[in-house]
C-alpha cells in the first residue's frame, strides 16, 4: 500500500492539538474552569498554568505528530496513532491531577468544568486518529484505536475524574440519568426498528413501481423539512383523539380488517403470474391500486400501537418504568400509551425522520444493481420474489446498511428533542442545564449522545463490512494469493 506524500487530516488534527495549548495574545484556551459553587462566575485555567511540564510535553507530542504527518514514511499511521494516543492519555492524567488539586479542601458544591482547550484536544485526538486509521491496513485499524478506547474505559471505571463537574452532576442526578438514558435508547431503537420495517419495503415497492416511487420518495424528503416542534404540535390532537375513542379491541379489529385486502391481493396475484409490460395495464389495475391503498390507515394504526408497546418493553428492559401489560379489550388505547403527549408522538416523529436515509439508500442500492444481473435472473426463471431476495437485496445490502447507519446517527441525535413532548431522553438534562445555567449538566446530556452516536456509527460500519458479500468487497491483498493458492493445489 503506498501512502500519499502527507496526511493532511492528521496534520489538521495535530495543529488543533497544539492550538489547544498555546497562549498567544488574546488566544488563551482555558482547560479547566473552577467555580466555588454552581452559581458564581468561575476562573479559567490554561494548561500551562495548571501543569507547565505536562503541557510542554503535550505540545511536543502534537508538534511531533504534525511533523510525522508531513513525512512519507510507511510507519506513519503507527507513529501518528502512537503520538495521538500518548497525547490523549497525558491529557486525561493532566485533567485528573489538576482537578484533584483544584478541588482539594473545597466543599462538594465546588465545580470544575472542562473548558475549550480540553474539548479541542479531544477533537484533535479524534481527527488525528481518523487520519491514521484511514491510512492503515484494514486489519490493523482496530489495533490503532485500542489505546484510546482502553484509556477511556479506564477513565470510566477508575473514578479518576470523580471530582470533575460533569461527574458530580451525574452523581447528583443519580437514577434519573440511568432512566433517561434507557428512555433515549428505547425511543431511538424503536423508531429505527419501525423506520427499517417501513422504509425498506417502501423502497422496494418504489423500486418496483414508479407510481409508488412518485409518492414515497418525495414524501420521505418532505417529512425532513418539517420542524420537530411543529410535527409534535400537529400530532397532539389526532393522537389524543385516537387514544380516547378507540378501545384496544376495536383497534385490533381495524388492523385485521385492513390486512384482509392485502391478503386478497396477494392471492389474486398468485393466480395470474403475468409480469410483462403488456399485461400490467389489465382490467385489474384500478382494483389493485385501490386494494393497495386501503391498508394504509390500519397499517399506520398498527405501527403506532407496535411502536408504543415495543418502546415500553425496551425502556423497561433497559431500566426505565415497567413493561406494558395487556390492558384488556375494552380499555381505551390511552392505556397502552397512545396519547397526545409522551412517547407516541415522539416515536412517530422520530420514525418519520429516520425514513428518509433508509428509503433513499435502499432505493439507491436497488438502482445500483447491475441491469445484466437482474435480466439474467429473470431470464433464468427467478420469480420477482426470488429475484429480490437472491439477487437485488444481497447486492443492495451494503447501501441498505449504510442507510441504517445514517438513520441511527441521525435518530440518536434527534431523540434529544423528545423531552419537548414529554417522552424523556437525555435531552432532559440539556434542558435542565439550560434552565439552571449549569453547563456541566448540559454536557451530561450532550456527551453521552455524542458517544452513543459514535459507537452506533462504528458498530454499523463494522456490520456493513461483515454483511457485504465477499464478491463485492474492495479487492484486498488476500484475494489474489488465495486464488493462486487454490490454483496450485
Amino acid at each position, binding site marked *: 500500500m503506498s501512502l500519499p506524500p502527507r496526511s493532511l487530516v492528521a496534520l489538521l488534527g495535530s495543529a488543533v492539538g497544539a492550538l489547544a495549548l498555546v497562549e498567544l495574545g488574546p488566544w488563551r484556551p482555558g482547560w479547566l474552569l473552577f467555580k466555588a459553587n454552581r452559581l458564581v462566575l468561575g476562573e479559567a485555567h490554561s494548561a500551562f498554568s495548571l501543569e507547565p511540564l505536562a503541557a510542554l510535553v503535550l505540545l511536543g507530542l502534537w508538534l511531533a505528530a504534525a511533523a510525522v504527518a508531513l513525512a512519507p514514511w510507511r510507519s506513519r499511521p503507527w507513529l501518528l496513532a502512537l503520538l495521538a494516543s500518548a497525547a490523549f492519555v497525558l491529557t486525561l492524567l493532566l485533567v485528573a491531577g489538576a482537578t484533584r488539586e483544584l478541588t482539594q479542601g473545597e466543599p462538594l458544591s465546588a465545580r470544575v468544568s472542562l473548558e475549550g482547550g480540553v474539548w479541542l484536544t479531544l477533537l484533535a485526538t479524534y481527527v488525528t486518529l481518523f487520519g491514521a486509521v484511514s491510512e492503515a491496513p484494514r486489519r490493523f485499524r482496530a489495533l490503532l484505536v485500542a489505546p484510546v478506547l482502553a484509556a477511556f474505559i479506564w477513565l470510566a471505571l477508575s473514578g479518576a475524574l470523580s471530582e470533575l463537574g460533569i461527574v458530580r452532576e451525574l452523581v447528583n442526578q443519580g437514577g434519573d440519568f440511568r432512566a433517561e438514558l434507557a428512555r433515549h435508547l428505547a425511543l431511538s431503537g424503536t423508531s429505527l426498528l419501525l423506520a427499517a420495517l417501513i422504509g425498506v419495503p417502501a423502497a422496494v415497492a418504489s423500486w418496483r413501481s414508479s407510481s409508488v416511487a412518485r409518492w414515497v420518495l418525495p414524501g420521505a424528503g418532505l417529512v425532513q423539512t418539517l420542524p420537530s416542534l411543529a410535527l409534535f404540535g400537529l400530532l397532539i390532537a389526532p393522537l389524543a383523539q385516537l387514544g380516547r375513542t378507540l378501545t384496544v379491541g376495536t383497534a385490533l379489529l381495524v388492523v385485521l380488517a385492513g390486512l384482509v385486502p392485502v391478503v386478497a391481493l396477494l392471492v389474486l396475484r398468485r393466480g395470474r403470474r403475468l409480469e410483462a409490460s403488456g399485461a400490467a395495464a389489465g382490467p385489474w389495475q384500478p382494483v389493485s391500486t385501490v386494494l393497495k391503498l386501503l391498508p394504509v390507515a390500519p397499517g399506520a394504526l398498527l405501527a403506532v400501537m407496535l411502536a408504543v408497546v415495543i418502546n415500553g418493553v425496551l425502556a423497561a428492559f433497559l431500566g426505565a418504568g415497567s413493561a406494558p401489560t395487556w390492558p384488556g379489550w375494552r380499555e381505551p388505547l390511552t392505556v397502552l400509551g397512545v396519547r397526545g403527549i409522551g412517547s407516541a408522538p415522539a416515536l412517530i416523529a422520530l420514525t418519520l425522520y429516520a425514513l428518509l436515509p433508509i428509503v433513499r439508500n435502499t432505493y439507491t442500492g436497488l438502482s445500483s444493481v447491475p441491469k445484466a444481473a437482474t*435480466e439474467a435472473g429473470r*431470464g*433464468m426463471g*427467478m420469480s420477482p420474489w426470488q429475484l429480490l431476495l*437472491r439477487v437485488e437485496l444481497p447486492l443492495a445490502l451494503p447501501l441498505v446498511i449504510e442507510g441504517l447507519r445514517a438513520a441511527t446517527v441521525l435518530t440518536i441525535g434527534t431523540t434529544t428533542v423528545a423531552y419537548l413532548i414529554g417522552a424523556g431522553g437525555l435531552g432532559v438534562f440539556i434542558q435542565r442545564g439550560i434552565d439552571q445555567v449549569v453547563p456541566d449538566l448540559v454536557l451530561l446530556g450532550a456527551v453521552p449522545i455524542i458517544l452513543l452516536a459514535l459507537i452506533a456509527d462504528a458498530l454499523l460500519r463494522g456490520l456493513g463490512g461483515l454483511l457485504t458479500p465477499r*464478491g463485492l468487497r474492495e479487492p484486498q491483498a488476500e484475494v489474489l494469493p488465495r486464488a493462486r493458492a*487454490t*490454483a496450485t493445489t
Partner: protein
Amino acid sequence: MIRFEGVSRSYGDVTAVQDVTLHVPAGELVVLIGPSGSGKTTCLKMINRLIEPTQGRVLVNGRDVAQTDPQSLRRGMGYVIQSVGLFPHLSAKQNIQVVPRLLGWPEHRSAARADELLEAVGLDPASFRDRYPRELSGGQQQRVGVARALAVDPPILLMDEPFGAVDPLTREHLQDEFLELQRRLRKTVVLVTHDMKEAVKMADRICVMNRGRIEQYATPEELLQNPGNRFVRQFVGSDRALTRLSRVVVGDMMLPAATLTLHTPAAQAEQALGEHASMYVSDGGVLVGWIMLQALLESGSVEAGYTALAPHHALSRTESVREALSQMIELGVANLPVIDDTGALVGQLGLEQVVTLTGTEKRPE
C-alpha cells in the same frame, strides 16, 4: 422445436417485430442477425417470455409459451446475455448452481454438476469454482455464463450476443469452444448477433432481420451464394465471397501433394520437378521446405537446394479456406502445404482450388 407463427410486437405506434414466422429445428444453431433495432433481440426474448407478443404466438415443443408459466418455461431454457450477467455476490460455482437450486436439486448434485460444467467450458474446477466474477477475466466470465446456462441441461439455449463483450482473439476462441461443445450436446440454440463473421461461422441457419421483418432465412451457404434481396446483399457485405470461404475448411479442399525427400536422387527430382513448378520437401514424412527446378539445377541436390519453410507458414486441415487465402496473400505465394499435428505433410492447397470455390456464384442481375 421453436416455432414463431405470425408474431408481431409493437410498443404503442412503434412496431419492433412484424409478422415473423420462423421455425427453429431441434438440435440446430440458428442465428438471428440484423442491424440494431431490427427486432432480433425482441424475437429472442419472446421465446422465454421476457417480452410478450402483441400478435401471433410462439410455440416451444408444440406448446404455446403464453400458456406456460414463465418461470418454469425459463428454467427449462439456458439464457446467456452479452454482459454475461453473472451475479457478482456469488462465486462461479454458486452462479452455476442458481437454476438447480431454484429447481430444488440437492446440494451435492448441483455442486457436482457445477464442477462438471466448469470442466466442460475449459475452467479447472479446483481453481475456479470459488472465484467471484470480479476475479475472472472477461473470457472466463463468459465461460461461466455458458456453464450456468447449461446447468440443468436444458434442451434449448438462448444466447444474446454471447461473445460480444470480449476481445476479438478471446471471441474466436470462445466461438470455437462453443461449437465444439455444441457438436457434442446438440442443443437447440438461438443466437443473436450483429457480426456476420460470427453468424457464418456458427450457424446452421441464419435469419437476417431488418426493421422487425425477416429478410431471408437460409443456410449460411445459401445466404452467401444467393442473397435474397438488396438488403441481405448489403448486409452480408461485398466480401461475402470471402465470408463463404470461412465456412470451408482446408481439409475439405486440399489436394494430395507430390513430395520429394531430402535424399531423393537429383535426377529423379529433376524429372518430378519437370512436371510440377515446385514441390514440397519432407524428411521422414515431416515437412521441411520446398524446392523449384532452377534451385535444384543450381545446387545439384535436393538437400542443398531446398528452401526451408517454417511450420507456422503451413496450413492445418481445420483452418478455414479464408484464413488459408489470407496466409497465401501475406506470404505472396499461390500454394501452401497442409500439415497435421505432427508436422507431417498431408496435402496442399492452391489458389486454383480457392477460386473454383467462389467461381460458381451466379452473377447478380
